[in-house]
């Protein structure tokens, strides 16, 4: 999987998450409508209060609205749930996960930031195979707009507490880890490379 593919994958995943949220709310709404309709009709049957025609019409309208929504939303929810899980499992199989802030990081206690749409934005499509343009702050080698992870740990609450940056495998400084095995903590000043785990693994 290249970075382009990862970006596309994340777009699909985020779309699926959004639609799933809508389907869930629709299903809950359908259930609430159904329950209100049945309660209203049951109440009518037992008590026959004043203004029963209005209540009857209201109950029937609610029922008519709820009946198609519930199975439709339920099916959509089920399919989207499966799709979302499948998309996550692709990342999981690559040793990656999506953190609470929506970033792709390695699935480890000390994760490496692999992809952050908020930082790369639309440039993501131009990243894979692109030449080093030195545009990334802090890293003269990487075209990926990267920055230390952890500055917003408190906000996101994610377990990201390292400060690794990601380089493409082509990045000479990011080709290997540091001597102590701590993922190249001192590879380049201002930039902590972890090329060995980063995108190299994604291409498997």
């Amino acid at each position: 999987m290249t970075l382009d593919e990862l970006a596309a994958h994340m777009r699909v995943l985020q779309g699926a998450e959004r639609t799933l949220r809508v389907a869930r709310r629709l299903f809950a709404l359908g259930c609430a409508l159904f329950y209100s309709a049945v309660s209203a009709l049951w109440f009518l049957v037992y008590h026959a209060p004043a203004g029963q025609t209005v209540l009857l019409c209201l109950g029937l309208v609610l029922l008519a609205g709820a009946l198609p929504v519930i199975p439709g939303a339920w099916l959509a929810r089920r399919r989207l749930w499966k799709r979302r899980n499948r998309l996550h499992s692709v990342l999981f199989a690559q040793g990656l996960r999506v953190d609470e802030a929506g970033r792709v990081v390695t699935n480890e206690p000390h994760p490496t930031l692999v992809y952050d749409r908020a930082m790369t934005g639309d440039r993501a499509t131009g990243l894979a195979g692109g030449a080093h343009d030195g545009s990334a702050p802090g890293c003269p080698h990487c075209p990926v707009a990267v920055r230390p992870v952890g500055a917003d740990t408190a906000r996101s609450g994610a377990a990201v507490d390292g400060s690794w940056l990601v380089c493409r495998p082509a990045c000479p400084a990011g080709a290997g880890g540091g001597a102590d095995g701590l993922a190249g903590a001192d590879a380049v000043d201002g930039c902590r490379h972890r090329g060995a785990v980063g995108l190299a693994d994604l291409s498997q």
Partner: protein
Amino acid sequence: MMPPAAPLRLLVLLLTAVISLRYIAWRGMFTLNSSTLFSTVLAVLLYLAELYSVVISLLGALVNSTPLRRPALTLADLSPGTVLPSVDVLVPSYNEPAEMLEVTLRAALRMRYPGGRLRVYLLDDGGTDAKVAQPDPEKAAAALQRRAVLQALCARLGAFYLTRPENSHAKAGNINHALRHTDGELIVILDADHVPTGDFLDRTVPWMVRRPEVFLVQTPHFMINPDPIDRNLLQSFRRMPSENDMFYQTIQKGLDFWASSFFCGSAALLRRAPLMAIGGLAGETITEDAETAITLHGQGYHSVYLDRPMVAGLNPETFTAFVIQRMRWAQGMTQILLLKRPFMHPGLTWYQRVGYMSSLLFWLFPFARLIFIFSPLAYLIFGFDVYNASTMQILAYTVPHVVAGYIMSDMLFGRTRWPLISEIYELMQSIFSLRALIQVVANPRHPSFVVTPKGDTLEEEFISPLAKPFYWLFAVVGIGFAFGIWRFIDDPVTRDMTTVVLVWNTLNFLTLTAALGALVERRQRRASPRMPAQQSGTVLAAGAEMPCEIDDLSAGGARLLIDPAAPQAPKRGEIIRLSAPAPQMGRTVTLRCEVCSAFPVRRKLALGIRFVPATEAEASDAVALAFGDSARWQFFLDRRIRPIPFTTALSMILGLIWQPVLMHSRMFFAAVRSTCVSLLRQGSAHE
């Protein structure tokens, strides 16, 4: 600092609260008119139990409406030149083994903090003068030997050993004695089995430095082994939030927002000055921690709750030990409710009173829980009309209340407490806690501190000695079904109500059946539990290096996965060296190990290894590798804290209830067989 609450969340909580209040008002006004005096008494009891549940839900909703997540602060965030306060680490101990204490002391000594400003004390209550001089010579000799062993251990590690003349006031008395003999500005209290990570002080001390009004920084108790109910029944320690996750991952954060997060006895940093001003830890009740927090909150001091697991502890291994622990908590919290009366304690703000009342009233759940078990039986077996409502009313009032309660609970605690699972935990504690609570209510000063046994090994499966009340309850609920079916056929007029009550009884029956499964104590041979590591390393064997994955890890050993095709794969009994990065220490550690087993697993060769450190530094490195990294604990927690839908929880329970029946029948037949065999042997011996 305080994040704004999500408006939708607050709106939903408000709506669910209104629905529940509407229900409880309707119940109180229209459904308590029973046919006989005795029925009325039972109906009122059931109503009180429901009222209690609604009050607890509403208090819980208020307390947890806006959980507070504190930002991460470290010593590096302090301005340069800040003088750091001196820290004393106090490890109170009563009867824990030296091996367990050694791990805790080594980890405490390895916490990152400027040299000379950290001192670690072992407070031994098992080797006091009174214990050494007790009349029983065997026990006196054991106490003397314990004292000598622990003194030698402390001298070897660089910790300080403290004991006292007598054992008055249990743990609180032990700590207060140490406070008089130490002088650190800050105090860390760690239980004997609570192993801190390297960054504990790095992340907690800055709060004390920056905010002088803070008297307490509490952190979660992260348990590295399943509790007995999980181990015996659920077996999902790695996949399901544990029982105390609800408190530490949700409730304490909610309490923190209302400035009422409280001291939990361990894994906390305290400021000495305010503590000494009130004469040390309070000792009026057996939960000295919460009692002390109430007193200091009342004096205007603040507390901070840091939601990062930085102390790894042990759950009790057996159901008996679990019950002992929970009874102590229930009794202690009820003592505080009766003796300290936080609802009128001077100095507390209204929201602190609400926070404390929410935490204290929760422990009265055994009363409500048992009423909910017996009420349907009163109707099904004896025909008492304890719940006077028509099906229409149940649909209009009860069902929305139940749904609203579920939505509220799911919204507040869905990630840390799965539906139905909590029912099992509460039911299993209820029977024993009820008796303990009645004792406290009768005599609030009566209970005494009982130490929770930990670190046991269980050689074989057996049925818990506390199982008998559950068998009785199981039989009675089963009889309720028989009567319910008879009532359903016999009385068509009340068929609707009978159906509703039968559904209620079914839920109770499912919970009880599952509870039976937790009473079969499963084998546990390992005293020191292994935790998943997910870390890479290098094995050095016979002059060759080979990469490995560390699959799991404890202070005593690990399981490594290596390539089976490696030319010099280590054999059983071979001495190798394991080299692995220890991120919290910022370096790679190398440990001497003995291969205890080698077997294929997941297309790899698994090596079971035991650490055999050659030096003291290497032994400390092993502890630091196993327990030093809080990111590992956080990672583990993040994997299992997630919500599941009600249907999944129900299918989980339905899948579990067959196990108890099978296990109990298997053990029953095994017991019958062994009895028959022994009788036959006796008979043949007589002949």
